[in-house]
Structure formats: C-alpha cells, structure tokens
C-alpha cells in the first residue's frame, strides 16, 4: 500500500510539472505573437551569451543583463524600423545559429581577423575596446611584460581573444610561450592554478580580474602594459549588408554624442569605446 501511494505521488507531481510547463510555454508563445502582430517593424533576433560578465550574463532572476544588452537596446531605440529580440546562446552556438539563420546578429565581443571575416560579415564600426592584460598570482614579481612570459606557461581559454593574441605572438616569435588550453568556463580552477604555480599567468581584462579579487579574496593581480588593445564588432550574415549599414551609422552617432561612452561607464566602469 505504501508503495502504491509513493508511485501515485510521483505520478501526480510529474503531471503537475508537465502541465504547468505546457501552460507557461503556451502563454509565452501567445504573447510573442500579439506583440509581433501589433508592430510593423521587422523582427531581428540578436544572439548573445549567457555567461560572460559584465558583457552578457543572467541576473538573479534569470534575465539577460550586461553591456551587450544596454548598447543594443539604445541602438534599437534609434532604429524603430527594427524590433530587436534577444536570444542567449553559448559563444559557439551564436556563430552556428547565425549561419543557420536562427539569429540575425551575433553580439559576444567578437574580434575581427581575416580568417573569421571569410565566413561572417563583420561590422565596420566597433563598439568596445578590449584591453587584454597579463594576470599573475599576487606575490609574483618576475613577470611584468609579455617578454617575461617567454618560457612560462600561460592559461588560455577556448573561444577567447586571449588565445588568439598569444597564438599570433608565438607565431611571430618562434613559440616562446607555453600555452595551456582550458575550457575557461570556470575561473576557480584558473585562479587555483596561479596560486599553486601550476601555471604562471592568464590573460584577462581589468574589470573581470577586479571581480575575481572581490570574490575569492586578493589572489591575483594585473601587471605591466596591456598586451593587446583590440576592438570588438557585431557580426552578421554575409548578405545582411543593409542591417549592418544601419547599425554602423547609429553606432557612429552614439559615439559622437557620447551615449556609448555613458553606457560603457555605467556598465563597464570606464570608457572602453574609443575607436582604434
């Protein structure tokens, strides 16, 4: 008898869950339909990330927040002929989704290079300056520049600009730096590796490193001059030149009237928008 009740309870619980999810899914889709029907503007789906603070991440209640969202919301305000909708995907799926027309714009601090431009259409107007710096353990004093990294091991994340910059450097200088690839999805293991001297450095940006130190207690620090200052761009499908031109124009305006700088100061804690 006892077992009977247990099974019944589980079945009841599961059916309630399925039911609520179905209702929620149903409501979600109907509201979507009504909004798109009401406005005449063209729907543009933006593919952005869900785990890259402070650019694109989810807040406590699961809403997308960050720099990417703030900038694009302002862009959309100035381009009423479009209606932006946001979809959160991981880095690689943004690229694949763009190719498969699941999304129309990729916004995940993408950096330009000729190989990448072969496959995707990059914007002409950048919207962020990405300043990469060397990060080492708090007590290290021997590393102060990229030359000091020769013969040392550096952790680089998959899909990041850090790997690309150091790979280029290695190519030009005969592989002096030992690159240790990691998924980079979890800062804990990277910081632990620096603390235990398993690796000598990783490459990051100041704001993120500040965040690490606040969270884990002062364990790492930024040293020396930036090793790379690059710009990041939105990416489009090759044929979407009109969309690209429209957004480029607005970004230029936003730079000229200081709006972009304001958003950067508000969200990133400094003006990281000056053109290369």
């Amino acid at each position: 008898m006892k077992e009977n009740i247990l099974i019944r309870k589980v079945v009841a619980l599961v059916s309630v869950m399925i039911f609520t999810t179905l209702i929620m899914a149903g409501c979600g889709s109907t509201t979507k339909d009504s909004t798109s029907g009401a406005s005449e503007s063209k729907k543009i789906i933006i593919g952005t990330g869900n785990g890259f603070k402070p650019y694109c991440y989810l807040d406590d209640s699961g809403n997308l927040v960050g720099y990417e969202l703030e900038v694009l919301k302002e862009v959309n305000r100035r381009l009423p002929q479009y209606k932006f909708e946001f979809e959160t995907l991981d880095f690689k799926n943004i690229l694949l989704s763009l190719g498969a027309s699941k999304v129309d714009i990729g916004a995940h601090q993408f950096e330009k290079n000729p190989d990448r431009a072969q496959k995707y259409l990059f914007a002409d107007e950048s919207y962020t300056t990405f300043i990469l710096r060397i990060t080492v353990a708090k007590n290290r004093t021997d590393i102060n520049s990229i030359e000091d990294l020769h013969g040392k091991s550096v952790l680089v994340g998959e899909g990041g600009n850090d790997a690309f910059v150091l790979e280029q450097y290695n190519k030009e200088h005969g592989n002096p730096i030992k690159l240790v690839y990691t998924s980079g999805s979890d800062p804990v293991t990277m910081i632990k590796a620096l603390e235990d001297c398993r690796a000598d450095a990783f490459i990051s940006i100041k704001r993120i490193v500040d965040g690490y130190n606040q969270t884990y207690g002062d364990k790492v620090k930024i040293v020396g001059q930036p090793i790379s200052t690059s710009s990041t761009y939105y990416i489009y499908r090759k044929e979407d030149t009109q969309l690209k031109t429209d957004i480029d124009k607005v970004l230029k305006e936003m730079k000229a009237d200081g709006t972009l700088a304001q958003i950067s100061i508000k969200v990133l804690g400094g003006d990281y928008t000056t053109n290369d």
Partner: protein
Amino acid sequence: MWGEAMEGFFNISLVVEALPQLLTRLHITLFLVVAATILGIVAGIIIALLRIYRIPGFNQISLLYISFMRGTPIIVQMFIVYYGLPAILSSVGININRWDKMIFLILTYGLNMAAFLAEIIRAAIVSVPIGQTEAAYAVGMTRLQTFWRIIAPQAVLMGLPSIGINIVGLLQDSSIAFLLGIVDVMGKARAIGANTYHSLEAYVGAAVIFLVITLLLEKVCATIERRLTMKIIGD
C-alpha cells in the same frame, strides 16, 4: 590548514543560498527528462521491434542509427537536430527554424535515448524464453495478448535498472540545454557561477538536488521491480 587554503574558493553557506535559486528551475529539468524519456521509450520500442522482426532495410537503418547515436557526442547530435533538421525541412517548404528551442532539445535527448533504450529493450524482450511464447499461444492467447501479458512485464523487469541509469544520466547531462539558452538546474548553476564567480558552490548545490532525485527515482524503480516480480510470480 585545509580550510585556510580553500578560503575564498568554497563557502558552504553559499551552497545553502544557491539551493532555492536552483530549485526554481527544477521544473524545466524534470519536464525535459520526462518528455525525453517518453519519446525515448516509444521510439526505442519501435526500433527494437524493427530489429527483432528483422524488417528488411529498416533493420540496417536502425543499426546505423544506433551506432551513430551511441558513438558520437550528444552535442553533435544536437547540431544535427537544431541546425540540420530545419535546413532539410525548409528545402521541402516546411519552416521549423524558429520553433521553440525546448522542442529541439527534447528531440535531441529523446532520439539519443531511443538508441540506448532500443538495445536494452531488445535484449530484454529476447531474454524471455521462447517456450513462454509458445505456451501462451497454446492456451489460445493472441500475438498482442502474449506480448502485453507475458513478454512485456518480464522485459520491463529485465530492462528497468538500465533504463533507470539512463534517466539519471539524462538528469545530469543537460549541459546542452544551457548552450541553447534554456536555463535548467545545471544551467542555473552555470548562470550563478558566471554572475557571482561562486561556481563551485552552485555546482555542489545542483549535485545535492540531483542526489535527492536519484534517490527518489531509485525508490520508484525498486518499487516497480518488486510489484512486477510479485505479479509475474503470482500469475
């Protein structure tokens, strides 16, 4: 010394803090698991029967399907379902490209599970001695009656532990959901990690939830097993 060295990296009170946040996404994980399991079992039975009755053509296709689904990483299978399937269907004029992502996810997990379950179900059905089928026919049961009353209960009993393990595996291995932006329990753990950098605590919190569900599931499986055994022996 241990605690001192772990300082900053792991704080047990943050696990407790993460738990209620993670639980708000439990219905997504459960929905995904239940829907994918139902799809997996139905498709798995069909594939198993195709293999048992050696239906020409389909038998070979099933073998290839099972081999691919077992042999390749699920992320690649997700690419095929999420990107490939709409591309193929759009060439015949059906546009499913912007369907709800959850549907693609359930399809991916369900089709993957079907391949594993097909082999389990096939092995379970084949393991029922042929003499029992013959005996059932002899007492005048139809083919369908024989399957449902004689073969199915014993086959379920044989296959149940493996099916349980598959469900537990699916419960945890929903990493692909978050890649597509669906926030289930594990996705929420990642989101907390990305937001607060306290990923270890969030992951441990998620593990605690999975542990409780695994225990429950085990109990349910054991109960079904016992009742089936009683039923078979009782008959």
